[in-house]
């Protein structure tokens, strides 16, 4: 870690932040978020189409593949605002799948898939397995070559939006080494998806059983790039989860502060009591730190070494910040905080999901210790 951490903010980030702030606020009011909890799909497809039209899916894809040619740094303000309004949908999973394809795909695959992904075709990652190891190279699902086809077997967990994604990027062990294959959902037989009961009810997460699924050999991504693709996806996912958590922390704190400003007990507004005021200030200060790390990570993302350090720090800090803010949000809402009707639970559930995907705070610090000490 360099002694002087740097941060910068591009013109494009500023514009996207502004547009996304308004868009997400308008499209994802809390009533909408709650109504989608009951919805099988879990998101509003019309809003997805609008996002595609705004070009958000194309942000971090080079122009030669139908993208806008910016970087993942420019996706950050968009995801931050989605997190702020708890907007659900396959935006992040599709973005990550595109990034995996971009780094790990063959030229042919990139030409074939990326323009569609930029235009609104949905995709997702199938990387996690029941063993629960956050190390993405720990792969027990297998692929076996049978002439011109690959025969898959094994089970993937936490595959977001697998029900509506058109493409799945699946990690497998092929001839003893990790590999990535692109699987079109249409080839999956009936009954391969099982919806998981997950703590964050705004999300749709699936287990996918690939036993016996066959794909053409051309579905294999460039094996020489698998490691690079997995590293890239790991860090991209961590960065975007940090963005989501920072956004959620901001609105969780705002939500709680509103309550502290209005609710009266013992003749006084409860926000005047230091037992509540000081911890919410600590939550706010923690959020401010997390946001600085988020934009530092975005700015340094493409820097060898420094990008990984900054991203792992961002994930660790965003995780701590949102956990604390949401935990206190429940407590400070008192009896109401214990109800399903109180939004505090939505934030807390979301934080538990986000923190546990791609490595929690303690895991990130352990990885940082390997890098820095």
């Amino acid at each position, binding site marked *: 870690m360099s002694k002087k951490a740097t941060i910068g903010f591009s013109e494009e980030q500023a514009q996207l932040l502004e547009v996304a702030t308004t868009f997400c606020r308008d499209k994802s009011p809390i009533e909408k978020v709650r109504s989608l909890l009951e919805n099988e799909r879990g998101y509003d497809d019309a809003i997805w189409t609008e996002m595609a039209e705004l070009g958000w899916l194309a942000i971090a894809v080079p122009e030669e593949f139908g993208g806008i040619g910016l970087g993942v740094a420019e996706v950050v303000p968009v995801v931050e605002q989605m997190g702020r309004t708890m907007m659900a949908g396959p935006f992040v999973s599709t973005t990550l799948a595109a990034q995996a394809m971009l780094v790990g795909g063959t030229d042919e695959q990139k030409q074939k898939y990326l323009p569609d992904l930029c235009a609104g075709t949905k995709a997702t990652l199938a990387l996690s397995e029941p063993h629960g190891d956050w190390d993405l190279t720990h792969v027990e699902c297998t692929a076996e070559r049978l002439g011109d086809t690959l025969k898959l077997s094994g089970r993937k967990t936490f595959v977001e939006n697998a029900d509506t994604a058109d493409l799945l990027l699946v990690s497998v062990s092929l001839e003893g080494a990790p590999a990535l294959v692109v699987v079109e959902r249409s080839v999956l037989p009936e009954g391969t998806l099982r919806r998981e009961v997950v703590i964050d009810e705004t999300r749709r997460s699936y287990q996918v059983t690939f036993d016996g699924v066959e794909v053409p050999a051309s579905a294999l991504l460039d094996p020489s790039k698998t490691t690079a693709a997995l590293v890239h996806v790991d860090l991209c996912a961590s960065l975007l989860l940090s963005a989501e958590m920072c956004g959620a922390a901001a609105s969780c704190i705002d939500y709680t502060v509103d309550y502290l400003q209005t609710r009266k007990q013992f003749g006084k507004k409860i926000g005047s009591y230091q037992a509540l005021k000081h911890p919410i200030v600590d939550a706010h200060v923690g959020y401010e730190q997390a946001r*600085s790390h988020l934009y530092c990570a975005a700015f340094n993302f493409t820097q060898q070494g420094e990008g990984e350090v900054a991203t792992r720090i961002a994930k660790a800090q965003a995780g701590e910040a949102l956990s604390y803010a949401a935990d206190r949000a429940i407590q400070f809402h008192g009896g109401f905080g214990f109800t399903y009707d109180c939004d505090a639970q939505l934030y807390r559930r979301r934080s538990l999901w986000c923190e546990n995907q791609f490595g929690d705070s303690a895991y990130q610090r*352990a990885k940082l210790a390997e890098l820095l000490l």
Partner: protein
Amino acid sequence: MSTISEKELSDYRSDAAAWFAENTNADPGFMLPLTFMEVGTDQQFNFLREWQHKVYEAGYLGAAWPKEYGGGGLDQKFQTIATEEMAKANGPIMLNAIGLNWAGPLILDMGTDEERKRYIKGILSAEDIWCQGFSEPENGSDLGNAQTKAVRDGDDWVLNGSKIWTTQGNYAKYMILLARTNPDAPNKYAGLSFFLSPMQVDGIETVPIRKLTGEYGFTQTFFTEARIPGDSLMGKEGEGWLVAMRTLEYERGVKGGQPGGYVMRASDPFEIVELARKATRGGKPALEDPVIKDQLIQLMIEARSLQLNSKRGHIQPLVQDKPASLALSSKLMATEFMRRLNEFAITLQGQRGAYYVGEPDAYDEGLWQRAYLNSFSATIGGGTSQIQRNIIGEHVLGLPKS
């Protein structure tokens, strides 16, 4: 409209670097204070006074203050460079911190021409040491409740009362003093006035306060029928609160330009890494303890938070939600961080964490233990962390007053 060339700046930088490399002596053979609040012996005082004088004579202090009052008359950019080079050379702190960072900028900005001529040069050269008379024994963070009285008598003012935590009060020639001139004013703030008071007059006595470290550095100041001249009043009678609040802003160099130097030498988390490499806990290297590793990384992250917050503060779209937030939070964050960092440094040392300054087997001469105990001066002084949380809660988050 700056017309300074890059070459001028880089030449200035190399001159400053060379000067500090040649003249800095951070190890005079006795322990130097980490902050201006820890100057506890004449030996330390004399060394630091001479050091400040030398830096001033070389032009690296007050470089951006007006020439006619003793400054260098240069652009602030030059002073910033000089201060950076001083830090790189790991130079000692500047002794006359209250003069340089509070009184000096205040006098430059709000004082009369006569006041500027009388005081500024002595502040820069460390000829005239300044202290601050804000806190009182019964009113620590509650400055507005100050009870020390100043009563007009002919041309003079007569002072009665007591101030506390007077840093370098025993060495000071002048005090910036907040005193009550009208006990019957419509509210407590309206009755206060601000003085540039001489200290070496009959009826002003300072008594050293021994700190939890065992050292000295602060005094309590007693005023008993002390008579100071009428022109000690700064600004208008009854407007002392406004002047005092402006004064606190200068600490951050908001107005009047920064004179340079630094008043604190913060412990560096990278030095903690060095300590973690050599220290042992339970007979094993501290760095083999996974809990220690986790905590160390967390502290390194927080050290970066402080740097990044200050940088993000300049990026308008990223602070527009709550514009005052980062500025108002920085004192709380930085001081609490330093306290925890120093505490952690002791934890790292295992059994030897129980040693203290003076014990030859103590790691780094007991620096961390001393720094930890001293770190409370910053989490209490200038408004406790609890007061800072109230300020952030009320001014940034809009919560009702406590």
